C-alpha cells in the first residue's frame, strides 16, 4: 500500500493505483480526455500532467501513466504543470469548430468544461482549421469529425473493449480520422456507448438531436427493462416524453456501458397508440369509473361461477409491486393464479430460480473475472446483449469461453463452439457432469445425488464428445469457472443440470459460479411469486372448457405466450370478461372488454429482480402524461395552460389491482415492502425505497438442499429419423417485447430468415436464398434460407421478429417432419 503526498496531503492507496485515481480519491479531479477507467491509461492526450516534485519519478509526468509509489510528492497545481495543461487545451482547440451553440454535446461536454475551466480563450494560432468529412454511421450515432480531439477513446472502446472492427482510426499526424472504411451503419450492437464515451461532440445521439440541452431534461436514474440483466441507465425526459437514455455506471452489473437495445428501447412510452384513457366496452370512461365497473363485473362473474372462474395473469415485465399485488389479490379473492410469467420459458426460469444458491450467484461484473466459462443453451448477444462484452473482458483476461448451443453462435471474441442439437444438450452436459463425478468422491453428495448422476447417459454418441471431455479438464483446473445457462429455448432438464455441474465443480475445488440468462426484466420475481400450479397453457385449456370466465391481465401480452394465435383468439372470445391493464397497445389490450391504462416504470417507481437475484429499484423519471407535442396544438414553444396533466389519469398497475381487490382508493396508504415480505420469504428484508442501495440488494437465496441433484430426467424417446427441430429464437433487435415497439431500432431489425446447416439443406435439395415453406400448426411460414455451417445439424433456426409473430410458429421449439419443409417456389 504505497503512501504518497498529493498537493501536500498524504494518502495511502492500493498497489497499482494510478496517480490520477489516487488524486480522485482525495477529491482532486485531474483533467483527462483519453483516460477512462474502463479503457485504461494510454497517455495520448497529455492533459493530466502533474509535477512530481520528489520521489522515485521526477518532473512533469502524466498522472494516468504512473503508479502511485511510496515517497512520491506530487503537485497538481504546480505552475509548470498547469502551464503545460493549458497549452494542451490550446492545442486541442486549434481545430475545434467552436460550434457549441449547435452541438448537442454542449452543456455536458468534457472539452467545453476543461477549456472554460482551464482559462483558454484566445486562439493565437493563425493557420486554417483542419476539416474532415463526416460519415453516415446508421440511425443511432451522428458523426461530426471536425469536433474531434483525437483522444482515441472511441476506437479503444469499439475495438478493444467490445471487439468490433468496423470503426477504427485512419491516417496519421494531424489527419488522424476516426470512422469506418466506408460510411455505413455501425455493426456493433453497443455503438451507442460511443456517444457517452466521446469527451466532445464527435458522436452524438442521433434520435435526440436538437431535442434539448442537458439542463432542459428531467434526468433520473432507471433500470433497463429490455432483458433480464437490469443494467443501469439515466433517463432524460422533456415535454412529457422520454427523449434519450445514457449508460449509468454500475459496479455490479453493466459497468460503464449498455447495449443499443437498452439505450433505444424506450419509445413505447411516448407512442401515440399508447392507451391513455380507460375504456369499457370500447367507450372511454374515467380511470376510476372503469375500475369500478371492472370490480362490479368481476364480482358478478364470481357470483355466477365461484372465484375459481376468474384468473389473474401478469408478466416478467411487471414490477415486483404489481406481481406481489396480483398474488395478494388472487389469494384474497380465491381467484386462480397468479400466472406471472406467460413466456414459454417460464418453467425453465422457475427451475433456475429454485436452483440458484447464494454461494453460486455471480454478478455480470464478476463474470469478467472468471477464467473458464461454459455457456449452455444461451445466445448472449441476442438474449442478454451486455453479457457478450462481459464475456469478452473475461476472454481478454485469458479466460476460455465455450458455447454449447445449437444456434450459429456469434460473439465478438475468440471462443469454442460445440453446435450440439437441442436433443443432445443433456447428453453434452452429462459428459461434463460424469467427468466431474469421476474425479471427485461422490460419497459427500448423498444417495440422491449419486442416483441422479448415474442416471444420466454417458453421452458418448454426440459429436465431439472428446472435445467436451477435454473441456471438463479446463473447468476443473480453473480458478473461477462460471456456467452460464440459458432458459429461452433450453430443454427442461438443462437449467438443473447446469446447477448440478456448478455444484459438483464447487465441491471439486474451484470457486464455481452459476449465471442464468432469463427472458424478462423481472422473470426472477415472477418465478418467486407465481402460483406454481397452473401454467398459462392450463389457463387457456380451462377457458376453452368454460371453467374460467374472466381474466385479469396486468402488463402482459398473451399473444407472446407461445400459444397458437388462432387458438388464443378463440379462447379470448369465450371469455365473459377480459380486464387488461397495460401501457402498450397490443392484441390483448385491443381484445379487452375493460382496458385500464397504467404507468410505465419511467413514471412510477418499480422494483425488479434481475437474473442474478438482485432486487433493484427503478425510481420514477418523470410524471408522464400525453406528450406536449401532441397536446400543445402546434405551439412553438409548446405551451399548455392547464392545471392537470392530460393523459395522466391513471396510476401504477398495482394501485389499480388494489382497487380491483376491493380496497377503497381513499383509505390509508399500504406498506408495500411489508406486503412483499408476506408474499415470499426471500423478500422479507427488502430495504425501504429511500434506503435502496445503488446496486440494489442480492436476495438471500438459501441453500436449497432438497432441490440439489434432483434434476428431472426427461426421456426424449427415440429420435425420429426424418425430423428436424425448429427453434424460434431471440434477436438483439426486434424480439424483446418493449424494444420491438421502438421506431429507432426498426432500421436495425433484420428481415426474418431461416438458418439451416448446408448439409441439411443439401439433403432437402435447398440452396442459399431459396424461399422455403414450413408447415406447422400456425400454417405455412415462407422465409428465405441462410446456409450456416456454424450450427448444429438437424436444426432450423428462425430469429423471431415480434411484429411478424403472427406469421411465425408460436412455439419456441418444435419438431418437424422433413416433409413439412419444402421449396416454396415449387408451389407457385
Amino acid at each position, binding site marked *: 500500500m504505497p503512501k504518497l503526498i498529493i498537493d501536500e496531503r498524504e494518502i495511502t492507496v492500493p498497489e497499482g493505483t494510478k496517480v490520477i485515481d489516487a488524486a480522485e480519491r482525495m477529491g482532486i479531479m485531474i483533467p483527462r480526455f483519453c483516460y477512462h477507467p474502463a479503457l485504461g491509461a494510454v497517455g495520448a*492526450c*497529455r492533459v493530466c500532467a502533474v509535477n512530481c516534485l520528489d520521489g522515485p519519478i521526477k518532473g512533469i509526468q502524466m498522472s494516468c501513466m504512473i503508479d502511485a509509489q511510496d515517497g512520491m510528492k506530487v503537485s497538481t497545481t504546480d505552475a509548470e504543470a498547469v502551464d503545460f495543461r493549458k497549452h494542451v487545451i490550446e492545442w486541442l482547440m486549434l*481545430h475545434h469548430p467552436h460550434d457549441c451553440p449547435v452541438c448537442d454535446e454542449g452543456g455536458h461536454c468534457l472539452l467545453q468544461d476543461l477549456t472554460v475551466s482551464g482559462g483558454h480563450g484566445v486562439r493565437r494560432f493563425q493557420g486554417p482549421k483542419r476539416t474532415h468529412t463526416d460519415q453516415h454511421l446508421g440511425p443511432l450515432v451522428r458523426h461530426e469529425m471536425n469536433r474531434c480531439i483525437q483522444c482515441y477513446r472511441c476506437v479503444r472502446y469499439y475495438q478493444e473493449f467490445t471487439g468490433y472492427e468496423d470503426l477504427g482510426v485512419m491516417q496519421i499526424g494531424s*489527419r488522424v480520422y476516426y470512422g469506418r472504411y466506408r460510411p455505413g451503419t455501425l455493426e456493433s450492437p453497443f455503438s451507442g456507448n460511443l456517444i457517452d464515451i466521446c469527451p466532445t461532440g464527435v458522436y452524438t445521439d442521433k434520435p435526440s438531436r436538437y431535442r434539448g440541452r442537458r439542463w432542459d431534461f428531467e434526468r433520473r436514474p432507471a433500470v433497463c427493462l429490455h432483458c433480464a440483466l437490469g443494467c443501469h441507465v439515466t433517463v432524460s425526459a422533456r415535454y412529457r416524453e422520454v427523449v434519450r437514455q445514457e449508460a449509468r455506471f454500475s459496479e455490479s452489473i453493466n459497468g460503464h456501458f449498455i447495449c443499443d437495445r437498452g439505450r433505444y428501447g424506450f419509445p413505447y412510452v411516448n407512442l401515440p397508440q399508447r392507451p391513455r384513457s380507460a375504456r369499457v366496452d370500447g367507450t372511454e370512461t374515467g380511470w376510476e369509473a372503469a375500475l369500478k365497473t371492472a370490480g362490479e363485473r368481476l364480482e358478478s362473474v364470481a357470483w355466477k361461477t365461484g372465484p375459481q372462474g376468474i384468473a389473474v395473469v401478469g408478466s416478467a415485465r411487471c414490477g415486483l409491486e404489481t406481481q406481489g399485488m396480483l398474488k395478494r389479490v388472487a389469494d384474497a379473492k380465491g381467484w386462480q393464479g397468479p400466472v406471472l410469467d406467460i413466456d414459454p420459458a417460464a418453467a425453465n426460469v422457475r427451475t433456475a430460480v429454485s436452483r440458484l444458491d447464494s454461494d453460486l450467484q455471480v454478478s455480470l461484473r464478476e463474470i469478467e473475472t472468471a477464467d473458464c466459462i461454459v455457456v449452455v443453451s444461451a445466445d448472449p448477444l441476442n438474449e442478454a446483449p451486455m453479457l457478450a462484452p462481459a464475456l469478452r473482458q473475461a476472454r481478454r483476461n485469458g479466460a476460455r469461453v465455450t458455447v454449447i448451443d445449437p444456434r450459429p453462435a456469434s460473439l465478438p471474441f475468440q471462443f469454442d463452439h460445440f453446435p450440439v442439437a437441442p436433443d443432445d444438450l443433456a447428453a453434452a452436459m452429462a459428459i461434463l457432469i460424469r467427468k466431474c463425478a469421476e474425479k471427485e468422491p461422490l460419497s459427500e453428495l448423498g444417495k440422491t445425488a449419486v442416483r441422479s448422476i448415474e442416471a444420466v447417459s454417458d453421452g458418448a454418441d454426440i459429436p465431439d464428445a472428446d472435445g467436451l471431455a477435454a473441456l471438463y479438464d479446463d473447468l476443473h483446473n480453473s480458478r473461477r469457472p462460471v456456467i452460464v445457462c440459458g432458459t429461452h429455448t433450453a430443454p427442461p432438464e438443462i437449467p438443473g443440470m447446469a446447477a448440478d455441474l456448478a455444484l459438483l465443480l464447487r465441491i471439486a475445488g474451484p470457486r464455481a459460479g452459476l449465471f442464468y440468462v432469463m427472458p424478462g426484466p423481472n422473470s426472477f420475481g415472477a418465478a418467486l411469486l407465481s402460483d406454481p400450479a397452473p401454467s398459462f397453457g392450463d389457463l387457456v385449456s380451462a377457458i376453452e372448457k368454460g371453467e374460467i370466465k374472466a381474466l385479469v391481465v396486468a402488463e402482459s401480452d398473451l399473444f407472446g405466450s407461445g400459444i397458437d394465435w388462432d387458438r388464443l383468439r378463440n379462447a379470448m372470445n369465450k371469455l365473459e370478461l377480459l380486464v387488461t391493464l397495460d401501457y402498450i397497445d397490443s392484441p390483448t389490450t385491443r381484445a379487452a372488454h375493460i382496458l385500464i391504462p397504467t404507468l410505465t416504470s419511467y413514471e412510477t417507481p418499480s422494483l425488479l429482480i434481475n437474473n442474478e437475484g438482485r432486487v433493484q429499484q427503478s425510481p420514477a423519471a418523470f410524471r408522464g402524461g400525453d406528450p406536449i407535442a401532441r397536446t400543445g396544438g402546434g405551439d412553438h414553444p409548446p405551451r399548455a395552460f392547464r392545471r392537470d396533466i392530460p393523459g395522466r389519469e391513471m396510476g401504477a398497475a398495482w394501485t389499480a389491482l388494489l382497487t380491483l381487490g376491493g380496497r377503497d382508493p381513499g383509505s390509508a396508504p399500504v406498506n408495500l415492502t411489508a406486503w412483499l415480505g408476506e408474499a415470499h420469504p426471500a423478500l422479507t428484508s427488502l430495504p425501504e425505497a429511500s434506503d435502496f442501495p445503488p446496486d440494489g440488494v442480492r436476495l438471500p437465496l438459501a441453500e436449497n438442499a432438497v432441490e440439489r441433484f434432483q434434476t428431472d430426467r426427461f426421456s426424449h424417446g427415440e429420435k425420429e429419423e426424418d425430423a428436424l427441430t425448429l427453434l424460434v429464437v431471440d434477436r438483439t433487435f426486434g424480439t424483446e417485447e418493449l424494444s420491438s415497439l421502438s421506431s429507432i431500432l426498426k432500421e436495425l431489425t433484420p428481415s426474418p430468415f431461416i438458418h439451416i446447416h448446408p448439409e441439411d439443406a443439401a439433403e432437402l435439395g435447398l440452396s442459399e436464398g431459396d424461399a422455403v415453406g414450413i408447415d406447422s400448426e400456425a400454417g405455412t411460414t415462407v422465409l428465405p434460407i441462410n446456409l450456416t455451417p456454424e450450427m448444429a445439424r438437424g436444426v432450423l433456426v428462425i430469429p423471431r421478429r415480434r411484429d411478424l409473430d403472427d406469421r411465425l410458429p408460436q412455439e419456441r421449439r418444435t419438431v418437424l417432419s422433413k416433409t413439412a419443409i419444402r421449396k416454396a417456389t415449387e408451389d407457385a
Partner: protein
Amino acid sequence: MAETTDTAYPQVLFANRKLDRIAAIDDYRKNGGYEAIETVLKTFSPKDVQKLIQDSNLLGRGGAAFPAGMKLQTVADDAPFPRYIVCNADEMEPGTFKDRVLLHADPHLLIEGMLIDAYSARAEKGIVFIRPEYENAARILEREVAIAEKAGFLGKNILGSDFNFSIDVHRSGGRYICGEVTAQLNALEGKRPNPRKPPPYPTEFGLWGKPTVTQNVETLCCMPPILRNGAQWFKDLALTETGAGTKLYGISGRVKKPGCFELPMGVRLSEIIDEHAGGMAEGSEFKACLPGGASTRYLTREHYDIPMDFESLKAVGMRLGTAAIMVFDQSDCMVGVTHNLMEFFARESCGWCTPCREGIPYIKDILWRIENGLGEERFVPMLERECRHLWNAYCAFAPGAAAPLEGLLNDFQDEVLDHIREKKCPFKASV
C-alpha cells in the same frame, strides 16, 4: 558516393566494399567472414558474447547510442521463448543513408552480425525491418539470406551446433515512425505503428509479448569484427578516449564531395568536411550543419573542430544521432531550413499524442509566416513555449523535432528577428 573511401584509416565495415558490385559470400569469407560465428558457436556462451560486446563499448548506431551489449544483457536468463531479434533497417532519418550503403556493400556482414546478436540473446528468429524504398536492398538481402542458408550459416543446427536461426525480410509500410523501436514492433504485429510506452521494455515484452532485441544495421555489422578482433581492438579504432570503433559518416549539402565515409569514431568535423568531403563547395562558407540527421540541433562555426563522437557532442549539448551531416552555407536561410524540417516532422507524426500531433504543425505554421514576411515579434516566445512543451510528448519523436528549432532560437535568433523586422526572408532576392 560511387567510389570507395580514399583514406588511410582502417576500413572495417567497408572492408569488402567493391566499386562495381555487392560483395558475395565468397568475398566475405575470403576476408574472414563467418569465422566469428564459427568461433562463437564452438567456444562462447551467450553471456561471453554479451560481455565482449559490452566491453567493446559498442553504442547503438541508430541514433540513440544505447550500449548494444547492455541491451542484450537486459534479456533476462529466464525470459520466455521464442525470443526475437529485429534488425532496424528502416532508415528514414532525413540526410541518413549509411545503412543503405552498408546493405549494398556487404550483406553477409549484417547476416553474421544478426547471427551473433541472436546467439547471445538465444533468439531463433530474426527480422530485418526494411524501408520500402530500399526494395533493391530487400531483394539483395533475401537472395543472400538464401545463399547463407544454403551454406549452412542459417537454419537448423547451424555449423553442427544446436543453434537454430532464420531471417525474414519485412518491408515497412513506409512511415518515419516505424523506425521507432516500439512502433516498429506494433507494425510487425500488424497493428497501427503507434509507439508503446516502456516499461515493460521490448527486451522483456516485445514482439507478441516475447523478448525482442532491436539493433540498427550498422550496430549489427560491428559485431563480427568485434568478435574476431576483440573489444580492445575495437576501442582502439576510435580517435577519442570515449569513442569506440569506426563510424559511417554520411555527408551532404554544401560540400564538394558528398558521400558516406567510414572513419574512426571521434574524427573532427573539420577533417570530415575539409579532407574527406573535399572541402566546402565553390563559393560556400560553412555556416552550420546538422550533425546527425533532422532530430539534432544545429552545430555552428564555433564547433567546427569538434571530435564527432557521441560523448564530445553531448558535452556541448548536441547529439551525434545517425552522424548524417548536412552542411549549410552563408546563403542558406535557417528559418527556411527549419520550416522544411518541421514540414517533415508534421507529416510523419503518428498522431498519437497531442504535443506532437498539434504542436509541430503549429510551429510549422509560425515558421512559414516568419519566412513569408508575416512574422510578429510575439512569435518568438510562442515558439520557445512550443519547444519547451514538446518535451512532454509520448515518445522521443517530438523532442527530436524540437532539437533543430531549439538550435534556430538559440543560435540564429538574429536571423529570425531579421525576417520579422524586414517582413521578408533576407535570403530571398526581393521580387
